[in-house]
């Protein structure tokens, strides 16, 4: 494929540039979209087709130690879903936790070209980057887990705010991360050190420090340092009845500072702890609607197989008690941990239907698609391979009604789903799958088709059945190179690592190092990940870099 390309006759959906279905050419040169190319550029005729920026997944679990543990755990899931190679591409296995190659290729077959791994322990960063190197096509980055980092918590306890800020920046640099991730902040120590207990509310102090203090410190620090994407927060009490109060309190803690709330569907439950929940989607989305500083992704549940895979280890243990399935827990020294178990969402089960319905309520009651982003928290709510079906649920009210009629009606009765007539437009879908996440991530070259943008482009045949349409793009172009043409792989691409390098004072290493020598089992000098693991990469500037 030549370095120059012209896509003609396609209907463009490019919300960042306010283009809603207009037929217009796109010109590509050296991996970017440009104003014009010479007449001898290769042409793709997109007559009758829809042209969109490549999809951007803001929250998924696709690489790193916990993902690989989940792969090892489930040969039965892989056996049923082999991913054969082609002359251009490597083979692999699918299922809810695909192998690295299958992950990259399968994202491409949906028209997605960027995905962010949402939870990586710092000590697992090197592993994650190794897997990224074997995850083709897509550009990718990860969020580093710092919310339960013992050293950082000690600094907060001692009120050493400036050192905290420097240490956060050091850790982000040392791991090549994209932003900071908090998961059940403050919950690790009760889990590991207090015989498997957990924090139960945002103001419960453990050793003098509450989740709220941790959340506030990270939100503020990340905003001060101008990270392109704010602190990415998995709230306390995930999955528990009545947790919507925690979620609201977490959002209030942000004040008017930017914060991203992950998979809010799992955090929008009313009712009493220990009893069946009801929906508080309206309360949660109302707060989001009225607070432009907040972005979120939904974490939609889709019926069928899933894999629970979370740094929220106590939650995984609770679920293990419900399913009695094989269960993995991994404690990571000084930093975090994770829990993994196979899971299945079933239509007849009240809780599962309620979760499914709450996700849809959140989408359908959202007033600002730019800030309520499509995700399934892959593979926790279901595989990313179910995005096309989710899109159809949002775009096609008739289909939605059919699906509603098949599920647990008691759960549906606890939601407003039957009253929600809204159908997403293609323009809005483009926002929640492309433009919105790119904007929330601060990726200025992604999520749009204007000159200067990365030439990550998906071309779909326009079809009435939106699931079919989004399942099989006719062309996928990554960095200006055709990867899929006429539904078949015609090339390969490594994709690049997206990361940030916030400035920090190197003196902070002298503060961190003694802690390492006492409490880590890896040498301080061997801890930071070297640039050799980056391969092709892009440093996304922070506001302070600019």
């Amino acid at each position: 494929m030549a370095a120059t390309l012209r896509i003609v006759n396609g209907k463009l959906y490019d919300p960042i540039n306010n283009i809603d279905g207009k037929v217009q050419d796109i010109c590509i040169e050296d991996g970017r979209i440009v104003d014009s190319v010479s007449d001898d550029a290769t042409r793709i005729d997109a007559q009758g087709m829809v042209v969109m920026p490549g999809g951007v997944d803001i929250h998924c679990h696709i690489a790193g130690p916990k993902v690989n543990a989940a792969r090892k755990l489930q040969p039965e899931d892989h056996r049923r879903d082999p991913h054969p190679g082609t002359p251009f591409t490597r083979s692999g296995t699918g299922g809810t936790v695909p192998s690295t190659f299958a992950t990259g290729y399968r994202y491409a077959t949906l028209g997605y070209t960027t995905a962010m791994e949402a939870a990586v322990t710092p000590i697992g960063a090197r592993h994650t980057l190794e897997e990224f190197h074997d995850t083709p096509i897509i550009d990718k980055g990860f969020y580093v887990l710092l919310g339960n980092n013992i050293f950082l918590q000690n600094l907060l306890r001692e009120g050493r705010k400036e050192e905290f800020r420097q240490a956060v920046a050091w850790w982000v640099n040392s791991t090549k991360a994209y932003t900071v991730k908090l998961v059940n902040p403050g919950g690790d120590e009760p889990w590991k050190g207090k015989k498997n207990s957990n924090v139960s509310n945002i103001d419960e102090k453990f050793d003098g420090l509450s989740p709220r203090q941790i959340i506030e410190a990270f939100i503020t620090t990340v905003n001060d340092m101008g990270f392109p994407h704010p602190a990415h927060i998995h709230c306390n009490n995930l999955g528990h009845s009545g947790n919507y109060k925690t979620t609201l309190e977490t959002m209030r803690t942000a004040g008017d500072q930017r914060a991203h709330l992950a998979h809010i569907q799992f955090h929008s439950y009313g009712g009493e702890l220990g009893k069946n929940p009801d929906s508080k989607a309206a309360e949660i989305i109302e707060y989001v609607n009225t607070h432009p500083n907040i972005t979120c992704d939904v974490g939609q549940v889709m019926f069928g197989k899933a894999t629970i895979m979370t740094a929220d280890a106590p939650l995984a243990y609770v679920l293990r008690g419900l399913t009695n399935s094989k269960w993995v827990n991994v404690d990571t020294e000084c930093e975090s941990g994770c829990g993994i178990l196979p899971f299945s969402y079933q239509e007849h089960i009240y809780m599962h239907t309620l979760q499914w319905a709450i996700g849809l309520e959140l989408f359908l009651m959202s007033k600002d698609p730019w800030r309520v982003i499509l995700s399934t928290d892959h593979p926790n709510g279901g595989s990313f391979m179910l995005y096309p079906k989710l899109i159809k649920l949002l775009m096609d009210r008739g289909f939605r009604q059919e699906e509603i009629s098949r599920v647990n009606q008691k759960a549906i009765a606890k939601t407003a789903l039957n009253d929600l007539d809204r159908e997403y437009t293609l323009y809005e879908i483009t926002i929640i799958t492309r433009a919105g996440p790119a904007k929330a991530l601060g990726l200025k070259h992604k999520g749009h088709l204007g000159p200067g943008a990365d030439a990550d482009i998906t071309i779909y045949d326009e079809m009435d059945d939106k699931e079919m349409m989004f399942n099989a793009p006719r062309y996928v172009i990554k960095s200006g190179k055709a990867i899929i043409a006429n539904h078949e792989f015609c090339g390969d691409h490594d994709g690049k690592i997206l990361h940030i390098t916030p400035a920090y004072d190197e003196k902070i290493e002298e503060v961190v190092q003694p802690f390492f020598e006492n409490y880590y089992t890896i040498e301080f000098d061997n801890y930071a990940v070297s640039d050799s693991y980056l391969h092709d990469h892009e440093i996304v500037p922070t506001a302070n870099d600019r």
Partner: protein
Amino acid sequence: MSLKLSLHTKPDVPLEADVICPDKLNGVNETAIAALTVFHGNDQTALGDFFTVKGQCDGEIQLEGDLANVKHLGSEMTIGKMIIEGDVGQHLGACMSGGEIVVEGNAHDWVAPEMTGGKITIKGNAGHLIGSAYRGSPIGMQGGEIIIHGDVKNETGNTMRGGLIAIGGNTGDFTGVNMLAGTIIVLGEMGIRNGASMKRGTIISMHHAPMIPTFSYVCTYNPTYLRMYLSYIRKLGMEVSDEQINGNYKRWIGDAIELNKGEILLYANE
């Protein structure tokens, strides 16, 4: 008229022939059958390179030759009958849900793993993991019958949830391990650690067997329902005596670590 497949060339390396299955061959003519794909190791080749094809499949396939290195025969089978004169390789009748397979010789490991229905008879011996789950799967055999006249090895009926496995000879270790439900009858002797982790289901043996510490002896009794099973397998040609049919059995229950609702019945008049 039935279809006859005779092995004319012995494979050098394992031959995967999951295409040999009534579902896939019914009504297909000789030339077309000979052209169907088999995998000789990594070499994608034609069935006719190894088999002489005669006749047409109207629900029945006869196979002959040394098929000890031919795998996946009758995989996913739902209907019809396969008669195999000789030994057969791994994964015979894997995941089958219907139909019948008869093997005159011996079978290898993984006979009918994750089977949900149908019937397999092996006149000789078979290997490990008969009627079991594949690694990682939460459920093994769910229905159907596996009748083996000879001996088998370890993990017979691993994670079985339904159906009948009858073994004429001895079994190896961990017979009925992780069993969820279903019935295993062993006319010979069992190895060690039988029924470990079993939740429900019944394991019957005509001999004394070592018990793991989490099984407890309940009583010696004369289970009437057992007569039906034993008479049935005698009808299939297995050596069951009147004494065994009418006899007393020691009843052990376990695994106490799990639900303690599984049972192991050992013939008491031995």
